[in-house]
């Protein structure tokens, strides 16, 4: 399984929790007779290009497995063509997967009939789209209430709930505007409100901020973080932007050509890249912003004076720099009263100056 590639110390943050969504060996193959590809060991082993030449099929998602824990922000990241958007659509069967399992709260979604699937989409999931997908002839309040309308809610209830959510995303005052009267960022807030209105269990985001300006994008990312704290929904977030992934994601799944390259927390990706592709990918990340003391501490030596300041292993390096540099002896990294290691001037300066760790 792909998550195995992640190294200790925190391979799966939520080992002890029951996952909300559990994906096993998921395939999506486009092309004639696509269903024979996952079953055939020979075809499944081919590279993307060989598969296209041999079987005229394109494998957008290949044997992907992962778990999403309740309440976490799970980011799927990859460049365009890596299969991430197809993957997220397979989870709610907006695109029909070719093979595999998607277990949601103990139920295999791929086996659900049309009615059950509609019910799940109406009550449990909702999605925010890259190009918003708003209906231009409806006002903001009618767009936000759209999902409720689809599931048959009455008009009064729709308006009440929509007004609530519009306030939540900071759009009050625009209830009766039309989408084309709003800026891109505000339109996506409408999309966000529409997704929240049905009070779903899981929110899917398909590159929601890629079409926005950098400044607006930052605002919207902060908005998502705020909303996540406020409503605590499980979120599956698709992006091609590494810094966005690191900023939002509790855990990140990196895809390439339909395969999982690595899955883990942000600091695992940066600290322990699974291969050269990941290493290349995370090369320009400011490491001090991502890595924690756990990644740079060294075992204490006999010569160390062990009465310096004490910090946890989860502290980000950037936040520890002042403490470490101000102390005249190494900082002790302590978890649950146990000494894990120490961090001195040399370790911190290595990271800030940009030297490699875990390479």
């Amino acid at each position: 399984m792909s998550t195995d590639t992640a190294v200790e110390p925190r391979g799966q943050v939520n080992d002890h929790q029951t996952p909300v969504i559990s994906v096993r060996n998921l395939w999506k193959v486009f092309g004639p007779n696509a269903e024979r590809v996952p079953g055939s060991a020979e075809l499944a082993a081919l590279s993307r290009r060989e598969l296209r030449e041999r079987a005229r099929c394109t494998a957008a998602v290949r044997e992907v497995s992962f778990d999403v824990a309740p309440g976490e922000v799970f980011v799927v990241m990859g460049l365009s063509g890596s299969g991430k958007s197809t993957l997220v659509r397979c989870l709610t069967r907006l695109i029909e997967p070719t093979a595999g399992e998607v277990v949601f709260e103990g139920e295999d979604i791929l086996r659900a009939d049309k009615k059950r699937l509609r019910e799940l989409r109406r009550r449990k999931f909702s999605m925010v789209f890259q190009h918003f997908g708003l209906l231009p002839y409806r006002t903001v309040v009618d767009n936000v209430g759209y999902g409720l309308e689809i599931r048959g809610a009455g008009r009064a209830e729709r308006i009440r709930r929509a007004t609530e959510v519009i306030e939540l995303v900071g759009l009050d005052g625009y209830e009766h505007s039309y989408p084309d009267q709003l800026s891109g960022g505000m339109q996506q807030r409408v999309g966000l409100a529409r997704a929240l209105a049905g009070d779903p269990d899981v929110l899917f985001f398909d590159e929601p901020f890629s079409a926005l300006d950098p400044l607006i994008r930052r605002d919207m990312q902060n908005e998502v973080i705020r909303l996540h704290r406020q409503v605590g929904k499980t979120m599956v977030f698709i992006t091609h932007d590494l810094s966005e992934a690191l900023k939002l994601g509790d855990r990140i799944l990196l895809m390439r050509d339909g395969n999982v390259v690595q899955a883990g927390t942000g600091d695992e990706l940066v600290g322990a890249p699974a291969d050269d592709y990941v290493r290349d990918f995370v090369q320009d990340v400011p490491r001090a912003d991502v890595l924690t003391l756990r990644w740079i501490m060294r075992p204490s030596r006999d010569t160390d004076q062990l009465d310096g300041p004490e910090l946890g292993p989860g502290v980000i390096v950037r936040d520890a720099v002042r403490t470490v540099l101000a102390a005249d002896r190494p900082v002790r990294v302590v978890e649950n009263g146990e000494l894990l290691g120490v961090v001195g001037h040399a370790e911190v300066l290595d990271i800030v100056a940009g030297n490699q760790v875990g390479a």
Partner: protein
Amino acid sequence: MATTTMTGSSTRTTPRRRITKPLAVVGLLALWLVAWTLLRGQDMLELPRATLTDLHHWLNDVNDSVGASRNSSPIFLYFFNEIRAVMDALVTFVQGLIAQPAYARPVPVLGWLGVVALVSYASWAFANWRVALLAAGGFILFGLQGLWQESMDTLALTLVAVFVSLLFGIPLGILAGVSDRFHRLITPVLDLMQTMPTFVYLAPLTLVFLIGPASATIATLIYAMPPAIRITAHGIRSVPAPPVEATDSFGATRRQRLTKALLPLSKRTIVLGVNQTIMAALAMVTVAALIDAPGLGKTVIKALQTTDVGTAFNAGVAIVVMAIVLDRVTTAASVRAEQGGGEPNPRIRRLLLAGFGLVAAVCSYLSYTYLWASEFPEGGQLGEYLSQGATTVTTWAQHNLADVTAAVKDGVTIALLNPLEALLAESPWWLMGAVIVILAALIGNLRAAAVAAVCVGLLVGTGLWNASMITLAMTLVATLLVVALGVVIGVWMGRSSRADRVIRPVLDAGQTMPAFVYLIPVVALFSVSRFSAIVAGVVYAAPVAIKIVADGVRAIPESTVEAATAAGSNTWQTITKVQLPMARQSLLLATNQGLIYVLSMVVIGGLVGAGALGYEVVAGFSQGQLYGKGLAAGVAIVVLGIMLDRIARAAAQRSDRAPSPNHT
């Protein structure tokens, strides 16, 4: 035409193949000329007007036996006759409402005041007050022209045809929009309906549905339904994906997806389809006068048959006005469908709606009850003034412009038409057939040659080979003129925005006019002759060709033209070396469309002296013993159309592939 384009653009490609092809065509033409001088006049397969072949007799017999079985055969009793009865009932019902005395009354249910009030009210409610004024003015004009009843007959038939077209067309269009399989199934059918010269299916229809309003309405809806289906399907298919996907993601059912996303998002396009359907229906209803449809078309035909230009002009004006009113009102309605009314206060609008509705209802009641509001008052002599004016202008033109018009007419007739007709029609049929097939192989491909061979065989089979060749000669001359106009005016419009702004509305107006109306000024200027028929075809086909060329020239990237200018090209060089070669696809398309449009005017041309196939079709409608021959002539027109279309398409494909060595 295709050959010249090919040579023009092929200077840098492989020389061997490029040079032999045009040489082969020239060689073929030379051989043909030599053979023609030797064999001229042999095996022409001429058929005198009153003579019938076995096929024609057989078709007459079919007609008779169909007529005899009309009240016995189950397929008639339970199918065709039922359709005819429903159509008749619908038409009679609407006619009774607005056009003809009905329900034991000496006048229709609604008189002129009621109709004008209701039309204006509907125009205002669905569109805006400006088009409502236009509609009121237009309808009052019909009365002043003394053509109230004829106009209402035309309107009644149009309304019924549009109603039935939309009743079936929009659901079929929605189905074609959401189902790929149905879309694949129906597209070739619609293609066929649209490439087939439209006046041709009148004949087979009369075989089944008799002559009269029912046949006319069915012919009209065959013509008017394809745009409704096609545009609705297009509207649904071009709805952007994101909102639809979002709708799915909320768990919408198929029905919700349709009613909440697809239909609202394609509303404007569908209303545009309604507009196209109405215009097509109006055009066809006037032409359906050929099979005894009541209304303005009939007035025009009768007048044309007696060369009474004045009366024809008066009725023509009414047709044009009706076209303008219907077009503007539905266009304005589609704009409103997209943008909303823009009224500041919906409550005031509701009040106004109710108020004006009451006024319209009162007017309707008045026109139901009182004669003055029912029959349009006499004394409006406008129609007579228009007729007399037109007659005066015609007489003046015939006396004073005779030199000019005769020169043009004789020039084209003597220089182009006569030689070509002699060449085509006086060659032995086997020589002519062979030339067509070989030419198709040379400028098109083998498949086109095979189609051409089959078509030649069918034309001989109809017994109307000679007439077909005469029609072909006229069609080619007309197409040549259409393409010439298309290139000259199209390039001008493509290069100059100002020319485009001035000319395009004229072309648009020309395209919304029912084809019939063109005949009136043409007959006025050139009287009844083969040349008049050609001019009518050219006037009908030129707007399409010009627009296609203009759009093609306009679509050439600015930078390419700029580069040519920077390289020091003068205007002529820019046109001939950059713009025309790059717009080659458009030129070919314009040629193809020009051909089809010209050919679809052949039957109409038969009314104004075209002779040949067009005449046979028209004669077939009016004289029972010529029915079979007319039907065969209709088939021959379709066969000619298919043959020319396939050859032109194959040539276009070939020249499309020609420049590829340059790119690789």
